[in-house]
């Protein structure tokens, strides 16, 4: 099929890359909190969906949903700090499994609250951006996808510069390297953790707003986003930003092809299977050197 219909291949690749940039943005948030606080946040995907609903509600009240890209992260920042103060600060220095299970609880909680608040319908915010036709309209690209990829890149670049230049960014990087030493040198690690989780939630907010424009959102769709970002992070490694972008795009392309070849009903399943396969592959590769994934 790949060679018989080259246009479908091009379409899938372009779709996948635009989608993958979005995934990479979520994965960057995941890598941030994993690296700094050493927690794995299962509720990541639910934060994304919540961010999406913020944009969707702006759309319902007549504001153009693209403004959600600005509003959603601001609200989500405070949601993130709130979650940190209530739950996450009690699991930061404990076993990773505790954090996985605690955030799993948060994830279930969020799912159900969103289900009550926003209903169980699949919704999307219509941006009205139209579509672009390439190659004699053989390849169709919605402009909203291009817009979302562009915004994601802008946000990622802003964040990288912020982490490099600002005082808080320096504090976050210092805490990631050695929390105890940072504390001794006068960094308020508690504040840094709260800010990190807030930043992560804000990133999720941006991604969610973009997803509500380009795709659809539904209260129960969170977990696949968590798994995708986890997968991207383990393939790319912590703190490897170009790697995160590349593996995000790779995952996007994989998903589009799985969608075309296997059918849409196996799309989510193939994502989860890919995660298992990647982990198994790395485990066998490392076990030859008698090592394991750390």
């Amino acid at each position, binding site marked *: 099929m790949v060679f018989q219909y080259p246009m479908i291949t091009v379409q899938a690749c372009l779709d996948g890359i635009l989608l993958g940039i979005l995934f990479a943005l979520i994965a960057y948030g995941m890598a941030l909190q994993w690296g700094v606080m050493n927690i794995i946040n299962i509720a990541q995907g639910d934060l994304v969906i919540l961010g999406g609903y913020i944009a969707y509600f702006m759309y319902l009240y007549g504001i153009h949903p693209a403004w959600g890209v600005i509003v959603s992260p601001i609200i989500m920042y405070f949601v993130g700090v709130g979650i940190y103060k209530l739950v996450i600060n009690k699991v930061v220095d404990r076993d990773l499994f505790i954090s996985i299970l605690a955030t799993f609880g948060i994830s279930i909680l969020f799912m159900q609250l969103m289900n009550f608040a926003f209903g169980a319908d699949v919704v999307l915010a219509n941006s009205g951006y139209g579509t672009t036709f390439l190659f004699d309209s053989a390849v169709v690209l919605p402009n909203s996808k291009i817009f979302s990829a562009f915004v994601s890149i802008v946000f990622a670049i802003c964040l990288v510069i912020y982490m490099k230049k600002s005082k808080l960014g320096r504090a976050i990087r210092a805490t990631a390297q050695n929390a105890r030493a940072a504390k001794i040198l006068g960094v308020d690690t508690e504040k840094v953790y709260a800010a990190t989780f807030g930043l992560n939630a804000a990133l999720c907010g941006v991604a969610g707003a973009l997803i509500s424009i380009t795709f659809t959102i539904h209260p129960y769709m969170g977990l696949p986003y968590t798994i995708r970002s986890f997968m991207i992070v383990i393939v790319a490694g912590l703190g490897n930003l170009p790697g995160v972008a590349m593996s995000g795009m790779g995952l996007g392309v994989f998903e589009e092809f799985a969608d075309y070849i296997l059918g849409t*009903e196996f799309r989510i399943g193939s994502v989860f299977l890919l*995660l298992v396969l990647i982990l198994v592959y790395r485990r066998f590769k490392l076990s030859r050197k008698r090592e*394991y994934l750390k």
Partner: protein
Amino acid sequence: MNKNVLLYAVIIIFGLAAPFVFPAFKVQLSILCVLIVLATTWNIQGGEMGYNTFGNILFYGLGMYLCASVQVGMFFPLAEWTESGGEKTFVHTPTQFFQGMAAGLVVAAVVPTIVAGLIGYAILGLRGHYFAICTLGLGVAAGEISGGIEIIGAGQGFTTPPFPNVGGLEARGEFFYFLSFGALVLTFIAVRAIYSTRFRLILNAIRDNEDKAEAMGIETMKYKIIGWMVSAFFCGLAGGIMGGLVGYIDSTDVAFDGREMGVFMVLMAILGGKGTLWGPVIGATAFHIFKEGFWTFFLGWQYVALGVLIVVIVIYFPEGIMGWLREKYPERFGEVVDEADRKAQVELK
């Protein structure tokens, strides 16, 4: 020792008499038995071996589908059965039903065990959170994929054979109660026997420090796989029974229900106390009573309550009931330490 014999005798007598004393709660008691089996087997991984898994739901769901498929497939074409959905064109005679159930349960227990061996070889080399996420992925993937397979009902679900019309109105409940109670007793005896051997010490060594255990010459991989296979055997059995009990199998809502059953088994084991024999039993009982008692008050808000419950238990009560009892009453529940042995250790230091 005498006290223990008395305790077991009381439990067995209670278990055998329960469906006749509380006829209204038969289904609830059967579910409780299944929950205890699941929590106890999760504890082999999560508590004793230190491999926190979300993936035991895989064996549970697999057992459920296999048992029902064998039960139908032995006598009738499976595809036509699932296609007809709720309207039954085929009816099992009582003999066929019980034969099918027996064969189905055997298959439901054996096949997940083999699957666990194969998967275990691949993924038990992962450690800590990688293992946890990997098994979470496996459980969800199984649910998504089984939801796309036509022959077992795909998205519309699979109705298990209805109980044949024998032995009066109460027969169905009693049959499934004794089946699940039997599974519970079998599991408990097996797990207790395992825990009294060197195998438990090896599992604990893997939990405490796997590298050192390996350096001491223990083939950790082998024991990890065996432990996982034991879990899978009883999980599959429990799944097969539960499938018959519920009467309807759906890929993501009943069989591979990571959001409910998959979390419940972890939660029950942690609530009761990880790494103890009785912890999961107590935890499952407490959880089930809480769930059935209060779920009706939270009508519609069950998942919210569940989420809050998970967070609260994990953060404020990670030691569980058994851990708390051990701390409070060390003379009754604490680890038994040989006095002379302890003294010798102290002198060595």
